Every structure is written in structure tokens, then in C-alpha cells.
């Protein structure tokens, strides 16, 4: 009795192993979904109030070159035209338009992955020129002030400059007032320009940078710092305190080389917010680039080749078989009662937009309202199809009401109610009613609770990102799921619930 199911299951399992191993060994896919480095979700909201006929905005965007990889970007530009302008290692999003007369909201969204070692140039960068506003004499004064440490190693020079910026010039030969004269000049310029001049004078490549603190918070002003090239890497210096940032990973550079991170033209920035959120991002997603360019057969046939907008669907669809497997287990091994076989799975899919708490509440609420209406309809003696239509109408009415209430309260979860499969809900109401009539309230509630529990479990499963990526990158894994389903189909043992059911049978307890 075991054999016939075992063979196809084993074959499916083997096929999965072969395909997965092929991908790992020949195509170099990652085995584990965790990646080093961090991923962040960046959201920039800009509100601009146009003041002139021609208005626009230039916003520094995170770029690939600075040790960060931008995985996906999305831009909402309102009435403006949008293009990306690259300038050195900077990228600027430029929004512009004529005749925009209302305040506009512009949003930019990106997923950024920090790659600890990548993106750092091997060659040291060129020395940048002195700040343009500085005169020749002032430049030579700076050079003279830096003379003392000019011959030392870069790290020593850097420390000396930082100490000098803090006001500690060390001993100077008596009668040498060059550093004092420089200090007078220094007052004329802002702290950053002064520091850049001194680094230049000390032959240390340095540049001004604007960006964000990498922390889960909302920032309304970009952070400014100075990057100095010391011993083959950039050191980040805080121009307010002249302290060195302990780790460069704490900052996300947006614009380097003295460019402003944001600038409005012909209008006024009424509000700007940068929101950063940590994100669990699988390393596999980072393989996207590599896979899309590959010529290998399985690479070309990878789901990662699908246009972005369809990928999301498949991330979920590929997990539906697991959900079905769970349902089979709960029904055949545990003995869970549910309404319909796959109904909980469909409800679980809807939970993705409503969330579990609201999802369960909406489900139960509509079920109860539906039950009340169904009890009333029973007295009217309607025929089956018109009766189901009335319940369907009621369900839609409930949805509409919930969405309107959600809108008033600002609850997106309630507005997403329309994604709950209403036909399924209608049939569930009918079944619920019949079950109460025929087998009693207890039986009906058991089935309702069973269904909701299975839906919540299935939802937990399909929203598990690691699993999503695993199945997305290795879709052949569903063959193994099928194998498990076949094996489960051959399970002829007792159900857990039967322990309870037959508890009064002689000799069995």
C-alpha cells in the first residue's frame, strides 16, 4: 500500500534536488537567504509649492558608486517631468515642469543595500581644488600653516589637521605667525570650506558630503560631513564637532563634492522628509542583476526575469501549494474542521492587504451580519440562487461601509476589505447557516474557528519572506511540496481528533 505513492514522491524530490544543486553549484546561487550588510527602505516625501511659471526640484538620490547598491526604485512625480541626471558619482533626480500652479507632492522610494567592501575605488582620488572663493594668498597661507606636518604619513597628517581644526596647533617655532594668520583667514569661511582648504593644503583628498544618518527615523534636514581619504579609505568627519564618525556605515551619502542634497527652483519647499526603515532583504534578491544578464538556461528561465510587477504575484503563488499542504495536514492528520477545502487559503491571501487582526475581525463580523440576514431571509422563502445573490449584495454592502468607515478613520486595512474574496464569504455564510441549522451552533463555530485558524497559519507562512525568496529563486521546490502532498495522500493512520472521538470506546482509552 505504501509503494505506489512513494515512487513518484521520491522522483519529484530527486528532481528538486538536481535542479537546486545545479543552480547552486553551476550557477553559483546562494544557499542561505541571509546576506551580510544591511538593507534599508528609503522614502523621500517632498512638498513643493510653485512660485514661478517654471518650477522644479533637484533631489540627490542614493547611487551605486558610493558603496551602496540600489536594488529597486520607484518615483511618483505628480505633474512634473522626471529624469535622472548623473554628475560624477552623484545622481540627481530632477523634476521640472511649466505651469504647475498647485502644491505638488513628490515621492521617491528605494531599497538600498550596503555592500561593505564594494564600491570603494582602489586608486586614491585626486586632490580636489581649493574652495573657489579662496584667494591665492589665502591658499598659500593654508599651505604654509600645514607645512609642519607636510612630510608625515597621511594618518598623522589627518590627525594633525583635525587637532588644528579643534584649535590645537601645537608648538610652532617662535616668530612664526603663519598659522595664526591662517586662523584669521579661516574665520571668513564656513567650517567646511576652511577644513577642506586645510586638508587640500595637507595633500589629503577631501570632499564635502550631504546625506542621511542610517537609522530608523524621519529626517527633515540632510546631515553634512567631510570625507577625507586616509590610508585607502574615506574617513568621515563631523564638521560641527570635528569628531570622526566611528563607522562609515552609519551614514548614507547622497551628494558628495559640495552639491546640495535638495534644491527647489522657481518654487518653495514646503516640507521634505527622508524616512529610513531597516529591511530584511535576502541576498537572493541581490542576485537579480546577475541573473538577468546571465545566458544560462535556468537563469534565462528564472522568475527573476519577469517584469517586476508580475514577480510579486509569483512570490505568493509559489507558496500557495505549501498552504494547501498545511490544510491537508490539518484536515487529514489533525482532523481540523474547515468550511470548504481551500477557502482558508483564499482568506489568507486577503489577509495580506488587511492584516490578520483586521482580517479576522472583518471575517467574523461579516459572517455574523450575514448569518443574521440569512436567518431573516429564511422566512422569506427565497429560491437558492436569488437568496445567495441577496447575501452577496449584503457582503458587498458591508465591504463598502467598512471601506467608507476606514477612510474616515484613516485605516487602510479597512479600505483593503475589497480584496477579501466575497464569493467565498457568501458561500461561507450560507454553509455556516446550514451547519447551525443541521448540526447545531457548536459544530458551526468549530468549523468557523477552524477555518480562521487555518487561514492565520497559512497567512503566517506566505508572508514569511525568506520562504518567499527561497521558492522564488528555486521554484522547483514546489515539486518537493507536491511530493509531500502525495505522501500525505497515502497517510492512512488515525487523525488526532479521533483520539477524542473514540475516547469512550472500550480498550482504546
Amino acid at each position, binding site marked *: 500500500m505504501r509503494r505506489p505513492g512513494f515512487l513518484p514522491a521520491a522522483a519529484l524530490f530527486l528532481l528538486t534536488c538536481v535542479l537546486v544543486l545545479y543552480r547552486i553549484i553551476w550557477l553559483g546561487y546562494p544557499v542561505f537567504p541571509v546576506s551580510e550588510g544591511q538593507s534599508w527602505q528609503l522614502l523621500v516625501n517632498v512638498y513643493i509649492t510653485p512660485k514661478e511659471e517654471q518650477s522644479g526640484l533637484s533631489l540627490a538620490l542614493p547611487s551605486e558608486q558610493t558603496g551602496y547598491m540600489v536594488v529597486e526604485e520607484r518615483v511618483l512625480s505628480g505633474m512634473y517631468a522626471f529624469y535622472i541626471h548623473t554628475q560624477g558619482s552623484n545622481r540627481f533626480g530632477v523634476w521640472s515642469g511649466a505651469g504647475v500652479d498647485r502644491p505638488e507632492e513628490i515621492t521617491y522610494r528605494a531599497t538600498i543595500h550596503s555592500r561593505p567592501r564594494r564600491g570603494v575605488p582602489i586608486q586614491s582620488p585626486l586632490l580636489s581644488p581649493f574652495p573657489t572663493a579662496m584667494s591665492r594668498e589665502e591658499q598659500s597661507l593654508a599651505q604654509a600653516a600645514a607645512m609642519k606636518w607636510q612630510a608625515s604619513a597621511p594618518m598623522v597628517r589627518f590627525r594633525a589637521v583635525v587637532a588644528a581644526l579643534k584649535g590645537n596647533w601645537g608648538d610652532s617655532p617662535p616668530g612664526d605667525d603663519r598659522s595664526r594668520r591662517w586662523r584669521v583667514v579661516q574665520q571668513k569661511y564656513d567650517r567646511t570650506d576652511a577644513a577642506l582648504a586645510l586638508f587640500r593644503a595637507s595633500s589629503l583628498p577631501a570632499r564635502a558630503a550631504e546625506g542621511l544618518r542610517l537609522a530608523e527615523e524621519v529626517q527633515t534636514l540632510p546631515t553634512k560631513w567631510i570625507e577625507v581619504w586616509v590610508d585607502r579609505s574615506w574617513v568621515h568627519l563631523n564638521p560641527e564637532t570635528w569628531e570622526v564618525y566611528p563607522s562609515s556605515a552609519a551614514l548614507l551619502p547622497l551628494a558628495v563634492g559640495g552639491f546640495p542634497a535638495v534644491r527647489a527652483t522657481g518654487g518653495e519647499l514646503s516640507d521634505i522628509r527622508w524616512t529610513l526603515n531597516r529591511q530584511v532583504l535576502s541576498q537572493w534578491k541581490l542576485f537579480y542583476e546577475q541573473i538577468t544578464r546571465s545566458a544560462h538556461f535556468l537563469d534565462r528561465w528564472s522568475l527573476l526575469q519577469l517584469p517586476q510587477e508580475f514577480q510579486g504575484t509569483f512570490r505568493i503563488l509559489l507558496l500557495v501549494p505549501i498552504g494547501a499542504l498545511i490544510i491537508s495536514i490539518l484536515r487529514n492528520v489533525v482532523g481540523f474542521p474547515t468550511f470548504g477545502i481551500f477557502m482558508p487559503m483564499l482568506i489568507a491571501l486577503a489577509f495580506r492587504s488587511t492584516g490578520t487582526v483586521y482580517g479576522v475581525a472583518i471575517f467574523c463580523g461579516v459572517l455574523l451580519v450575514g448569518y443574521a440576514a440569512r436567518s431573516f431571509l429564511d422566512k422569506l422563502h427565497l429560491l437558492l440562487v436569488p437568496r445567495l445573490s441577496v447575501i452577496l449584495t449584503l457582503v458587498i454592502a458591508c465591504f463598502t461601509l467598512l471601506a467608507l468607515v476606514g477612510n474616515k478613520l484613516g485605516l487602510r486595512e479597512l479600505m483593503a476589505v475589497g480584496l477579501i474574496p466575497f464569493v467565498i464569504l457568501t458561500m461561507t455564510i450560507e454553509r455556516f447557516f446550514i451547519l447551525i441549522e443541521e448540526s447545531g451552533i457548536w459544530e458551526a463555530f468549530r468549523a468557523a474557528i477552524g477555518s480562521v485558524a487555518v487561514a492565520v497559519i497559512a497567512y503566517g507562512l506566505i508572508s514569511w519572506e525568506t520562504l518567499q525568496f527561497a521558492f522564488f529563486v528555486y521554484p522547483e521546490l514546489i515539486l518537493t511540496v507536491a511530493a509531500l502532498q502525495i505522501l500525505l495522500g497515502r497517510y492512512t493512520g488515525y487523525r488526532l481528533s479521533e483520539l477524542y472521538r473514540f475516547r469512550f470506546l472500550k480498550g*482504546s482509552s
Partner: protein
Amino acid sequence: MILDGFRRLRKSGVLGMNFRNAGYIMAYNARSAYPLVDDKVQTKRLAEKFGIPIPELYYVVENHGSIAKLPGVLEPLGEFVVKPARGSGGSGIILIKGRTEDGFVTQSGKTMSKEDFNYHIASILSGIFSLEGGEDTAIIEALIHPDAVFKDVTYREGVPDVRIIVYKGVPVMAMVRLPTEASDGKANLHRGAIGAGIDLSSGITLAAVHKSRIVKTHPDTGNPVNGIQLPHWDKLLMTASEAMDMTGLGYLGADFVLDRERGPVLLELNARPGLAIQMANQSGLRIRLDETDSAPPAVFSSPASRVAWARDHFTGPDSSTLISSGG
């Protein structure tokens, strides 16, 4: 602990749902035979062909159009039963025992207007009581007056029925289902009827199961349910055994009602009989099924030999427990 529980169930020979489905229903019941038992009209036609007594079939309402013809059909009938041809678990069944000027009187004494009655027929036709929810037909058949033997353990006018599980033509387990107040006069266990096991060799009732608990008396009448000798016992077993030849189903449940005058009449056949019968009999089906599997081939030659063998081998619950502890 769970595995221990499973082991105990296995040891007492309990048949679980999964094994029933895979090991017996799927293995011995051909899909093609299902319509014969899922549709009570077909079962009736078949039984008539084999000379098996059934409640007389008055009329089959095939579609909404023929509801209009009903008054003419029902005119000469004082009492009758309406049921969905593809129903199960007693749903949609109405026993009519009399009529008033503008309606009918049901078994429980309630009156039902003609309009309600027609609505009920329409509901049956639209399939809400049917197994798969598809279109259905409504059966109008004779009301059976049950034998008085179970009078003391039946709620009022309820009609008890006898369920016999038949495996490869051998009756392996039986019970009588006694209506209670809760079950609305119908003999379906999940509606609250009680099921009393029957000693297969003698046809005498054992203790009963009521909502998965063991009871010795009827919950409404308080009379003991055990020790009642079923009349026509051999005839019941023989008819049940013939049901296999009739349908080709290797594993089935046959439901009978004992008519006051005619004796056993076949109500319906079931290709997926439930498992509660094991509790009514306080013994597991697996043991008896396995024993049947190892019976000598000669046993299966005729209904008579199968029944004789069964009556020899399957006695009350005690002997099966004995078998289980031995093997």
C-alpha cells in the same frame, strides 16, 4: 503520548477516517457505482429489480415545472414522506402524517402551509440538501409505520432505522438508530439520535452511543436500550448482503426500516458509511474487516453463506476485544 493513543486505537481495531477512505472506500467502491447509491431514486429502481422491499415510490418531482402537478399527485395520499433524492444525514426530509384544509401536518404535529410545502420542494430541487450542491430531485414516498419493537425506546412518532455495514458482501457490524426529541424524529446520529449496537449473531441490541458517549437508556423515555431482539434479523442480514451484489460496492452501509406489516424495507444505501457505529458496538471495525479478509473463499459464494459466516464470527463487543488482545 499521541503515538500511544494511536497505538491503543490500533490495538482495539478502531477504523479511522483516513484508512476508511483509502483502504476501503477508494479500494473497493468503484466511482461508477456511486450514482446508484447517491441518488435514492436509482437505488429504489435497482432494489425493485432485485425484489428488495422499499417504501413505495409515489412520485418524483424532477423540475420546478412539475411542482404544479403535485396537488393532483398528493390528492389521494393521506400520509407520505418528502425527501431530497441526493440528500444525506436526514436533511430536507419531512414526514407528513395528515392534512388540513390548506396544508399538511408533519410527524412532530406542526402544520405546514401548502406554500411552505412548495417552497420546500423548490429548495430541494435547487440542490441545497444535495451532496455536492448540484441540481436535485424530490422524492414523494410512502410513510413507513415502524414495528412496535422499539416503541419504548423511540421518541414519540420517530422512525428508527437499522444500519448494517457490509464488507465484500459480509455483514460486519450493525446498529439500530433510535430517534430522540433532539433528532426531530429522524434516525440520524449527528442530529442527536442514539445508536445501539447489535450483536450480529443474535440480533439483540447492546448499549448505545449518544453524542459519542455510552448510554444504557433512552434519553427521552428512560427505558433501557439494550437486550431488545430485532425481528426478521436473518432477513435483514440477507438483504444487506444482497446489496453488494446489487451495486457492486465492496464497502457499504445499508439502512433499513422495520415496517409494521412488511418487515424490513430498504431506505437507502451508503457508499461512505460513518464510523460512529464502532462506538455503538463498543468494538473496532478494523478487526472485523481484517477477519473478513482472511475468511475462506467459499464463504463469499452466496448471501446465505456470507450471513451464516458473519453470524458465526461477529458476536457482541466482548469477543472482539478478546480478538484484539489476542492479535
